[in-house]
C-alpha cells in the first residue's frame, strides 16, 4: 500500500475496508451492540465527540477502550473524580531552575483519542476545561495557546444524572457532543456469550490498531464528499422545523445541530458504502443527535427518545 502508484480510488477503498474491519473488531468485543458501535464510528468520521450515558457496568468504558484501541491513535484515559482539577487535564508549567524558565508539561488532553470516564463526577470547572478544548481544538494555559493534536476524538461516559454525587453537564456543553446514546443491558444471547467467553480486558489488551491517524483524516475527508440531494435537505429542514414546535420540546435544535445531523448522516451513508445520503440515514442518526439536546415540554411523561421517535413519525418524507 505504500507504493506511490496506488490510485486514489484504491487508497479510498483500502481505508474503507480497514474501517469496516475496525468496526467489526469492536463488535466482537462489545457483543450485540452493532447499532451503538456504528453510531460511535459515525461520530468519529463526522469529526464529532461522543457521549455514552448509562448505569455503571454495561460496557461504556469497554466500548470506548475498544474504539481507542482499534483506531490505533495516541490514546489517553482520564478518570473524572470530584477532586480532579483543570490542571490535571490540561497540564502545568513547572519552573526549571537550571534553565531559569517555566516549562510546560502537557496534560492528558494532548492526545488524539481521549476517554473521559464518568465525566459528570468532576466539578463544573474541570468539566469545562475539557469541553472547551473539544470545542476549539486548542487550549490556552497562562497566555500560551497550545494546539491539540489531530484527529481529536473525545468519548465521554456519564452515569445517569439522578445518581448521587454527580454534576450534570449544562445544556450548552452537551451541545459539544455530536451524538449520544445509552448502551442498555445486553440481550440474553449476547449476555450468555459474554459469560462464557474470555475476559474482555484481556481481549482488549490483545486488540491491535487497524487504522492510522492518516487513515482517519482520509476517511473524514471522504465523508464530506457524500452527496446530499435537495430533497434530502428538505427533509432535514422539515425535521429541524418540527423540533422547534413548542408542543414537542422546550427549545428546538440549533442550526449547528442541523449541520451536525447532515455530517453524521453523511458518515452513516459512508459506513453503509453509499455515495449519497438517504432519509433512512438521517432517521438513524436523528435520535442519537437529538436526545441529549432536547428536553420534552413539561407535561409529557415520555422519555426524550420516545418523544423523538414520535416526532420522526410525524414528519413525512418529501
Amino acid at each position, binding site marked *: 500500500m505504500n507504493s506511490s502508484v496506488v490510485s486514489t480510488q484504491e487508497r479510498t477503498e483500502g481505508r474503507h475496508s480497514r474501517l469496516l474491519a475496525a468496526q467489526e473488531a469492536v463488535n466482537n468485543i462489545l457483543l450485540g451492540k452493532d447499532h451503538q458501535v456504528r453510531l460511535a464510528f459515525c461520530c468519529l468520521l463526522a469529526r464529532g465527540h461522543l457521549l455514552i450515558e448509562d448505569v455503571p457496568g454495561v460496557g461504556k468504558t469497554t466500548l470506548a477502550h475498544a474504539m481507542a484501541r482499534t483506531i490505533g491513535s495516541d490514546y489517553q484515559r482520564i478518570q473524572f473524580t470530584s477532586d480532579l482539577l483543570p490542571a490535571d487535564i490540561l497540564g502545568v508549567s513547572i519552573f526549571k531552575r537550571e534553565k531559569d524558565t517555566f516549562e510546560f508539561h502537557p496534560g492528558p488532553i494532548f492526545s488524539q483519542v481521549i476517554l473521559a470516564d464518568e465525566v459528570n463526577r468532576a466539578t463544573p470547572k474541570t468539566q469545562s476545561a475539557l469541553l472547551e478544548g473539544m470545542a476549539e481544538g486548542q487550549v490556552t494555559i497562562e497566555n500560551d495557546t497550545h494546539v491539540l493534536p489531530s484527529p481529536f476524538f473525545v468519548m465521554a461516559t456519564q452515569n445517569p444524572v439522578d445518581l448521587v454525587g454527580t454534576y450534570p453537564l449544562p445544556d450548552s456543553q452537551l451541545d459539544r457532543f455530536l451524538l449520544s446514546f445509552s448502551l442498555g443491558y445486553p440481550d440474553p444471547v449476547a449476555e450468555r456469550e459474554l459469560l462464557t467467553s474470555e475476559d474482555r480486558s484481556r481481549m482488549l489488551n490483545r486488540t491491535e490498531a487497524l487504522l492510522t491517524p492518516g487513515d482517519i483524516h482520509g476517511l473524514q475527508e471522504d465523508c464530506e464528499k457524500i*452527496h*446530499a*440531494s435537495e*430533497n*434530502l435537505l428538505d427533509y432535514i429542514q422539515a425535521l429541524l422545523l418540527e423540533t422547534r414546535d413548542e408542543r414537542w420540546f422546550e427549545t428546538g435544535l440549533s442550526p449547528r445541530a442541523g449541520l451536525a445531523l447532515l455530517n453524521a448522516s453523511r458518515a452513516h451513508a459512508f459506513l453503509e458504502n453509499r*455515495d*449519497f*445520503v*438517504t*432519509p*433512512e440515514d438521517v*432517521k438513524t442518526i436523528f435520535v442519537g443527535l437529538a436526545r441529549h439536546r432536547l428536553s420534552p415540554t413539561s407535561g409529557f411523561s415520555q422519555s426524550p427518545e420516545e418523544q423523538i421517535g414520535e416526532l*420522526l*413519525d*410525524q*414528519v*413525512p*418524507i418529501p
Partner: protein
Amino acid sequence: MIDPGRKTVYWVIATLSLAMLPQLVRMPPLVAAIAVLPLAWRVTAERKEWPALPALLRHAMTAVGLLSLFFSYGDLSGRRAAVSLLAVMLSLKMMECYRVRDARLVVCFSLFLCATQFLFAQGIVMPFYGVTSVIVALVTLTRLHRNEAWSHEGEPPAIKSSLFSELGFSLRLLALAVPAGLAFFLLFPRLSSPLWGIPETTLDSKTGLSDSMSPGSIQQLFMDDSPAFRVEFEGPAPRPDERYWRGPVFWQFDGKTWRQSFYSRNIVATSRPDAGQSASRYSVQMEPNERNWLFALDYPVTVPRDTRLTLDYQLIRRDPVIQLMQYSMTSNPDFIDAPDLPETLRYQALKVPEKSSPRTRELVERWRRETPDDRAFIQRVLSHFNEQPFHYSLEAPLLGRHPVDEFLFETRMGFCEHYASTFAVMMRLADIPSRIVTGYQGGWYNPLGNYLLVRQSDAHAWTEVWLPASGWTRVDPTAAVSPLRIQQGSLGAMGAPRHFLDYSWLRQARNSVDIIQQRWNDWVIEYGAGSQARLFEPLGLGEMTPARLVVVLFIAMGIFSAILFPLVLRIKGPGYKDPVQQIWQKFLKRLQSMGFTALPSSGALELADAASLQIPSETDSIQRIADLYTRCRYSPDPPPLNDLKHAVGEFRPNKKAG
C-alpha cells in the same frame, strides 16, 4: 431583467399590439406611424440584441410624439386625442421597458387601452376581441410574475408548463371574474348620456345622408352595407313599395346641388297628423350616425323626445345621434300634407336658377302647352322616363355645367338622385311646386327576428309635388325607370355585383346573421339608465335609484367574494409534479391494494423492509423498486427514470397469488 431567456418581452409587445390595433385604425397616419415605430424597434432590438437607447434619444422621441399629436388633433382633449396619447406613450414606454416593474405597468395600461375601444365601437365583435386581449395580457402577467419570483435564483426552473396550461389558467381567472363583471354591468349606476358624448364629426367619416344632395352623393352610400336602422312593427310590415323612410327634405336648387331651406329646418309643423284607421305603429333602433335626422314612414303622428317635427315633416333631433338610439313611432299614410300652400313656400318650391338648363326649359314649355293638366303632365314626364332608353345605373357619367340638360338629353344613365333632381326641376319649370325628399327605401325583412333591417345602401331620393286638394304628393321617378328598385331594393335592381364578394346568397346570409347584432343591441347596448331603473320591477322592488343600485351591487359583490375567495385560494398555477414521485405514488397505491399501507414518515428502504415482511413473495421486486426510487431521488447520478417506471409497471398486485 424581464426574462432570463424566456422571451416574455414578446408577450408584452403582443399584449400592447393587440390593445393598440383597434385604435391604430382610427388614428391619423402620422400618429399611427409614431405609435408603431417604437414597437417595431423593440422587436428588432430583441432579435438583434441591440443595447437600450440613450435617454436623450428617448426624450427626443417623446417630444416628437407629443408634437405630432398636437399637430394632428389641434389639442389633446377629446377621446380620440386622449386615447391616441395613451397609445403613443405606451408604445414609447417599450423603448425603456427592461424591468419587470415596467413590463407590468405596460401590460396593465394595455388592459386600460383595450377598454377604451368601447368608446368608439360597441359592436358584437369587440367584446370577443377584448376577451382575447385580456387573456393574452393575463398570460403575460403570469409569466412576468414567475420571472420576478425567480429573479434571485437566476433562471426559473424548467417548469413543464405549456402555452395551453397558461392559457387555461388565464381562462379560469377570467371565468372567475365573470360574475363580478356581470354584477357591475347590471348594477353600476349608469348615466343617461355617456361622459364622452362629444361628437367629433370633423374626424368621423361616418356615412349617412347629409344635409345636401348633388349627383353622386347617394351613389356613395350605395357601396356601404352597414346598418342604418332596424324597425320592429307592431302589426304586419307595410308592402315594400310603401316603405319610404323620410329623412332630409330639400327645397333650394342652385343648378347642381339641392339644399335645405331655412324655413323647412326651423319652422315647426302646424298641423299634426292624427292616428287614423290605417296608422302603423313601430319602433326604430337607430345606429349612431352623428347626424340629427330621425327616420319615419310618412307621416309621423308621434314625435320622440328632444325632437321637433318641421313643416315638411322631417324629424330633427336637438342633438346628433351618437349612440344607439331607440324610439317608438306611429305613422299615418293617409294624412294630407298642406292642402293650402302659403305663398312663401310656393315661391320656394318653384325657384329655379335663371339661365340654367335651357334645353329642359324649352322641352317643358313645349309639353306644358300640349298638356295643361298637372296630373297629365306628371304622367307624361314619367312615361318619358319609362319609354325612352333611360337606365338605372351606378356608372353614371360625370355631369358638367347643366347637369339636368346633360342627363335628360345625353347620358340618360343615373342613380335615384339624378332622376329625382331632374324630375323636380322639370316640375318647377312647369309651374308645379316640387321638392326633393331623401331617406331610405325598402329594407330587408328578417323573419327570424321579425324586424326590418335598413342598410345605408338602401338610401334613396324621391320627389314630392304639390297638387291642389291632395297637397304634397310623393312621386318617385326612379320607380318609373326601374320598378325593381322599389320592389327588390337597389341591390336587386342593379343586377351586377358591386364588388367581388357581392353575391346575393352572401347578402342573404349577412342579412340573416344581422339578427345576432340586433339582439346584442337590444340586450347589451340598449341597456341603459332606463332599463336599469326597471331592473327589479319583476321582483316588485319598484324603481332603482342609483343609491339603491350601489347597495345591491355591494351586496352582490360581497356574496361573490364569499363564494370565490376559497376557490381562488385553491387555484394552483401551472403546476409541476415530480415524475419520480408520481411513479412512486402509483407503487404505493398498488401496495395499498395488497393490504400494505405506508406511513408518510417512513423512508423508501424502511418501507420496503416492512412491505417485504408482509408480502414475502414480492420481496425482490419491492426492494428493487425502493432502491431505484431512493437512487432517483437522492443519488448524485440517478438511474434512468424508465428503470423505475418499468419496475413499477411490472409490479402487479394480482401476481400475489402466483
